């Protein structure tokens, strides 16, 4: 069965520092990959997604993630974080071969805490 591992449950970082949130998935088959962000007391918002093509995908607010098939990873990075980036970040996959369509399998989440 497909699984997603987010290697860090909490990542504290100072404002304007770079950050990397790590995500690994288990399946050897082709997958679609997603990063969602959850602000306190809110639902999840899509940050970026990888479907095919270029292995580097970017979001409108400066985040980027790189799909690495050989390492089954999809790490999220930002070169300079802001206080407003403080939130919970979830990595998710859906299996291309899964006949359950858009079923998303989520990791446990990484709490990013940006300090002034």
């Amino acid at each position, binding site marked *: 069965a497909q699984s*997603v591992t*987010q290697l860090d449950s909490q990542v504290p970082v100072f404002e304007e520092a770079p950050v990397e949130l790590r995500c690994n998935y288990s399946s050897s088959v082709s997958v*679609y990959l997603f990063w*969602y962000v959850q602000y306190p*007391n*809110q*639902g*999840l*918002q*899509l940050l970026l*997604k990888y*479907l095919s093509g270029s292995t580097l995908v970017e979001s409108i607010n400066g985040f980027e993630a790189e799909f690495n098939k050989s390492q089954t990873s999809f790490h999220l990075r930002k070169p300079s974080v802001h206080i407003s980036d403080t939130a919970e970040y*979830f990595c*998710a996959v*859906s*299996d*291309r071969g*899964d006949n*359950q*369509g*858009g*079923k*998303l*399998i*989520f*990791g*446990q*989440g990484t709490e990013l805490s940006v300090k002034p």
Partner: protein
Amino acid sequence: DAGVTQSPTHLIKTRGQHVTLRCSPISGHKSVSWYQQVLGQGPQFIFQYYEKEERGRGNFPDRFSARQFPNYSSELNVNALLLGDSALYLCASSYQSFGTDTQYFGPGTRLTVL
């Protein structure tokens, strides 16, 4: 356009009771999925419906059921509530039911079982 809406926002029930959670998808979206998010964990897939038919079911007991209406809104029902059912229940809508479709999440319903 309005996003995904869920009702109620919060709910408190006691063990053994039944609960119904409601979700209205984004206008034009035909698929609704339900997820359970226990505190400190990632969301877990419960159901997906597309065009009123069940397209996927997660590893949840038969106490959990759902349905989708002709207007594409959806209900999640949970019978014989247990303490462990306390969680944030998230509804997500998408245009279709493919893995490439972006799922848009509602704010969730916080269920507390006492």
